[in-house]
């Protein structure tokens, strides 16, 4: 028995919202749209470039970019603003499991019949759809979860890009034996960065257990009892145990990690490839020293990449200007929108709009990434795009495993308990 809460009651209850009287557009012909994005420098830069380019084309519509925290805090801001009826006209948010938690059918504009949809890749549409309706368009690019490596370090030691976990560990031993360079960088001050060994290993899980996502959603398979799924946790523990980490792994930040891998202070940094944008921003001079490879599994023949879809851009269902909102979203999803983003932050990865192309002279890490998406390349979506079940405590669990506080099997069990709450909250069958 589910009750919808009357929006009016909620608004009345939230004391703060009483103060937030709408000072909306006082202009007559001109329309102002607000656009909420996360505060990653590359995102803000791309968003502002899009807003400016769109305004140049449509002088009567102004887009105001507003930024919010990223990660869990950002999720909360988005959910709270939707619940209290204070969302911006347009907003960016994740696709996949997090998208479903926003109750799209109630909160977002239906974009199913927009003319540009035929130009959007089906795989992206599948992760921003619910009950056959499409609610989002792609913003920014697809990403890979894998390992950044310093090409200069590799060249100096004559190392090859590893295709198996054993090769990866062998490379690490060589780097460690030589000394002076940290083999594997970990940055637990920003706890979310600790999840890559586990989340980025999902391509390998899928090779061993192809129906893992369906069974996982239906509460029929567990991380702790599936050896292939447990592997990611085990790898992380192995790296710690072998003493391959930077000394300050517990206090280092995401930006420290990017600095270390860019400047060659460290050799490997497991990360999502959107970080290329931040490297480009903060360590531009070193961007050509950074390469990328997928997290290797057990079998070299089955080497492939765990891929993250692009973020979505969504229209708020309660907006006063739905037509203008749709026009702006169409612009973001168009080839012109892609080019505007490339110009602003550089080429970071493949776009989800079919007609979009990347310039020829992309940085090496992007070239490495795009190869996994090109003909003959192998990739599979991360679990969060195939199942709505994702536990919120994963980043703390992986910090513990990666710091040697908790054993991998124990951590996997804890994570299995953790996802149960999410499944119950979403009301999935088979979890009560």
């Amino acid at each position, binding site marked *: 028995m589910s009750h919808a809460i009357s929006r009016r009651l909620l608004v009345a209850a939230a004391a703060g919202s009483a103060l937030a009287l709408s000072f909306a557009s006082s202009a007559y012909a001109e329309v102002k749209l607000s656009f909420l994005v996360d505060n990653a420098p590359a995102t803000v830069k791309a968003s502002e470039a899009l807003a400016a380019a769109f305004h140049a084309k449509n002088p009567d519509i102004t887009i105001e970019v507003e930024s919010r925290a990223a990660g869990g805090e950002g*999720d*909360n801001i988005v959910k*709270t603003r939707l619940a209290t009826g204070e969302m911006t006209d347009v907003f960016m948010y994740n696709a996949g499991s997090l998208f479903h938690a926003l109750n799209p059918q109630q909160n977002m504009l239906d974009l199913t019949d927009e003319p540009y949809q035929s130009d959007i890749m089906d795989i992206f549409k599948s992760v921003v759809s619910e009950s056959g309706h499409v609610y989002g368009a792609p913003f920014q690019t697809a990403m890979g979860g894998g390992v950044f490596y310093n090409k200069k370090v590799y060249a100096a030691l004559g190392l090859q890009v590893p295709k198996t976990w054993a090769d990866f560990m062998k490379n690490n031993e060589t780097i460690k034996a030589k000394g002076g360079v940290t083999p594997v960088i970990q940055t637990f001050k920003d706890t979310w960065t600790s999840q890559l060994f586990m989340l980025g290993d999902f391509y390998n899980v899928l090779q061993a257990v192809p129906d893992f996502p369906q069974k996982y959603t239906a509460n029929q398979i567990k991380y702790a009892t599936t050896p292939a799924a447990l592997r990611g946790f085990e790898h992380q523990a192995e790296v710690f145990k072998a003493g391959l980490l930077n000394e*300050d792994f517990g206090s280092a930040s995401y930006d420290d990690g990017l600095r270390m891998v860019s400047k060659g202070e460290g050799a490997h940094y497991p990360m999502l490839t959107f970080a290329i944008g931040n490297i480009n921003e903060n360590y531009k001079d070193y961007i050509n020293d950074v390469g990328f490879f997928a997290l290797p599994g057990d079998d070299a023949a089955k080497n492939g990449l765990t891929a993250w879809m692009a973020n979505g851009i969504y229209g708020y269902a309660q907006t006063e200007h739905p037509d203008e909102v749709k026009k702006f979203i169409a612009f973001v999803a168009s080839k012109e929108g892609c080019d505007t983003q490339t110009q602003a932050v550089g080429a970071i990865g493949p776009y989800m709009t079919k007609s979009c192309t990347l310039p020829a002279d992309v940085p090496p890490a992007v070239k490495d990434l795009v190869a996994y998406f090109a003909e003959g390349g192998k990739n599979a979506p991360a679990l969060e795009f195939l199942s709505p079940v994702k536990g919120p405590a994963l980043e703390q669990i992986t910090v*513990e495993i990666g710091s040697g506080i908790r054993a991998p099997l124990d951590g996997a069990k804890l994570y299995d308990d953790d996802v149960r709450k999410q499944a119950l909250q979403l009301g999935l069958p088979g979890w009560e």
Partner: protein
Amino acid sequence: MTTLGKKGSRRGLAAAYPTWFYLPAAIIFGVLFLFPTFASLFFSLTRWTLFQYSFIGLANFRQFFSEPFLVWGLVNTLIYAVVTSGSKVVLGMLLGILLTSNVMVRGLLRAIVFFPVLVSTIGVGITFTMLMHPTNGLINDVVAVFGLKGPAWLTDPRFALMSVAFVDVWKGVGLATVIYIAGIVSIPAEYYEAAKMDGANALQRFWNITLPLARPATVTVIILSLIGGLRSFDLIWAMTKGGPGFTTDVVASVIYKQYQAGFYGLSTAGNVVLFVLVAAIVVPLSFALNRKEVEA
């Protein structure tokens, strides 16, 4: 209705203002305090996504108490509260005695010990996070001067909670000191003179005069700092976010993370539990401490 009539007649005698005069305050109280309190009790019994809710009885409480990190969080909360509260009592008392003596520039020293209280908790947390950085923090740089290697204060699970507790004490001891100064100053000087004549030494004077007569101050400091310690969150969040992993999680940070994850019903249930927990510890304690005071 009958009780209301009875109360009404009693109020009629005692009331200083007509009923309408109470109305504005009553409305504010109802909207901002009563309604949220009962709403949160209600939502703690539901699975709530902010967009819709379904009534699930006590399942949230069952879930909350079966959280693997909750027991850990409870233990940490108690350790943290007792350690910070105890240190503030001892240090506050000692500093109070020092700063009521005829020490030079007493006013300035009193101000200095109170300064950390005035600084924003988040600011203090961020500053100490930098000072306690394992490889380029000032604290370990100083330790290195003596040829030693300092630990990772905030990321080694053995030290993290105590490191935060230390900062909490540093920040909060000023308030305890001020309370003690007020308590000690109000003790009549005659007692000390009489004790001196009877040949009591400094330790005896402290033990038999200052300590018992500063009891109201001690009670205030214990209760204030214990409540503060039990519901402490901001400093821990600023410094460790409950980490590494779950090792410095306290009840409040467990609740916050549940809220962050979108488990609104569950985290509301957690807040109800925290409320009951604080009440269950502080009410009897306050009762016991105050009763002894009357007996003494």
